[in-house]
């Protein structure tokens, strides 16, 4: 069941004029917004954009290529750590940003090759990605000794790497992006990645990808090597997760092993299932809702209860809503409308 909004078209179809208009409106709104907000609000909202990128990377892979990767946090963390180490060593950020993303994509390519080309079953793949991110976390946590140094940077194990520099403007390297700068950058990148993925899905590549999700065997009988497409999607989404990780490191000026952790990975899933994976906007909305709830509930008060609540929410959502929370509610409203209309005739 697909809930389409007229004029927008379902993902996979060429987007209509209305969609472009909405994207432009959103972009303009995002660019005007910071002047109306104070610093703290800008700070809190930028993290939503950054984490929404991570959610997007997972939902693209899950919703359109049919690969459920729990280990997007592996690329998220690799991006963050890669950027931190490179930027602190080189004292330069533009190259570090791209290099960190490429590093994560390279890792995605190698790991993905071993998993996808072996035609390991989907469910094993999901679990293996999770295993990878957990082992990354463990490995990084164990690097607290003084001997674990890359270039000039100590990895610091559990304590993470502080003083990660902000992004410097490439043509004016003396100036670093402030809080509003990070806001603009992450908002623009989120819109860019969203539009990019949306258009990618309308290309032949995207169509084959969706075809693989629907019926792998049929696509293969048509002569496509499904493994190549899956691997490509895996690498792309690894890159997006790494971008999110870099921005997170910049936003926080700090990276820590928790970036790889189970809790972070679980949160990504919560964002995606709250927003639903059948659209690309869904996960962004899901991230925004969950993050805003978290900020407004005051993580101080919830504090140690957070994992407990998160766990209960996860169990309830899975048991009650199959397609995600927003589509579930949307479906419920549609059902009610049908009932009401049915009652009237």
């Amino acid at each position: 069941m697909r809930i389409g909004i007229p004029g927008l078209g379902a993902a996979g179809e060429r987007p209509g004029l209305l969609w472009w208009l909405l994207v432009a409106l959103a972009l303009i709104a995002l660019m005007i917004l910071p002047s109306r907000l104070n610093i703290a609000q800008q700070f809190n909202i930028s993290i939503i954009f950054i984490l929404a990128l991570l959610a997007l990377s997972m939902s693209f892979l899950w919703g359109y290529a049919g690969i459920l990767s729990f280990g997007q946090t592996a690329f998220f963390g690799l991006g963050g750590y890669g950027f931190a180490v490179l930027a602190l060593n080189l004292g330069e950020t533009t190259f570090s940003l791209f290099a960190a993303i490429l590093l994560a994509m390279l890792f995605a390519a190698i790991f993905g090759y071993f998993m996808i080309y072996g035609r390991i079953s989907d469910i094993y793949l999901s679990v293996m990605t999770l295993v990878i991110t957990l082992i990354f976390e463990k490995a990084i946590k164990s690097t607290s000794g003084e001997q674990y140094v890359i270039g000039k940077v100590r990895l610091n194990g559990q304590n993470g790497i502080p003083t990660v520099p902000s992004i410097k403007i490439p043509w004016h390297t003396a100036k670093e992006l402030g809080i509003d700068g990070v806001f603009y950058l992450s908002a623009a990148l989120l819109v860019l990645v969203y539009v990019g993925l949306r258009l990618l899905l309308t290309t032949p590549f995207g169509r084959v990808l969706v075809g693989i999700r629907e019926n792998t065997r049929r696509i293969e009988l048509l002569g496509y090597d499904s493994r190549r497409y899956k691997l490509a999607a895996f690498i792309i989404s690894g890159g997006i997760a790494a971008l999110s990780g870099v921005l997170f490191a910049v936003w926080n000026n700090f990276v820590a092993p928790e970036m790889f952790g189970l809790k972070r990975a679980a949160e990504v899933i919560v964002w995606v299932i709250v927003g639903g994976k059948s659209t690309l906007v869904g996960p962004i909305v899901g991230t925004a809702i969950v993050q805003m709830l978290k900020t407004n509930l005051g993580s101080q008060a919830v504090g140690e209860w957070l994992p407990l609540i998160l766990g209960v929410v996860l169990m309830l959502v899975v048991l009650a809503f199959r397609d995600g929370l927003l589509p579930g509610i949307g479906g419920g409203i549609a059902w009610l409308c049908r009932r009401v209309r049915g009652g009237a005739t």
Partner: protein
Amino acid sequence: MQLLANYVYLIGYSFAIFVLISLGLAVIFGMMRVINLAQGEFIMLGAYVCVEATKAGMPLWLAIIVAGLAVGAFGIVVERLIIRFLYGRILDTLLATWGLSLFLVGGVTILYGPQSESVGATLGNFQIGDISYSRYSLVVIIVAVVLLVGTYAFWRFTRFGLIVRGTMQNAGMAAAMGINTGLVYMLTFGFGAALAGLAGGVLVPIVGASPQLGVSYIAKAFITVIAGGPLPLLGTSAASALFGTIDGIVSYKSSTVVSEVAVLLIAIVLLRLLPLGITGRLRRGL
């Protein structure tokens, strides 16, 4: 001689750890195809039950058995409340058990705090040459082997084992033969949980009980069962032997984290060569 004995001991011990942490998962994930991310937390609960039971004055061996039974019962409750609605929805099971895992870690942290609690095992040491070994780790090896052989015999030779295997192979057919498949699923899940609880009880004197205990094992356990392939028990034993050997040698030469990474890399390469796991080519067995 000395060196050889040392390696035999280390490898045997690593093998035992792999068997202990993955045997329950071999039943729940390998046989039932339920991806239970809370499996590590079952081990953790077993550890805490064991700690509480020894505090209440039970001898350690009894406390370990109590841990197994208690976690088995808990597993049955979990199956009734959550898992039974999710059979066949493999991804949803994964998410729900993940929620359960977070819930249990959070709950235990609130109840006991994040620090680790332990139980002393006073069995003393024994010597081979210059190096002394803890006698308790011999017990761990023996328990692991007994559990492995016992589980195998239980599935292979008892009537209940036959019914379970039949149900897992074709639940519809088993139901048509008059078997209450819901009950079988429930008991099998409970059995897998009980194995995890036992493992937690056995491991407590070595590693202590802390809320993060399960998280530190879950990755290893899943690698083992996945690398083992479609015959859960045979595959898990073979994978445990392989990974135990690597882990024993590498952790001795280097550190436990390096050995964990090494095991993971070997597993990834192995899955490229044998995507179905070690037992992927075997037709029958358990």
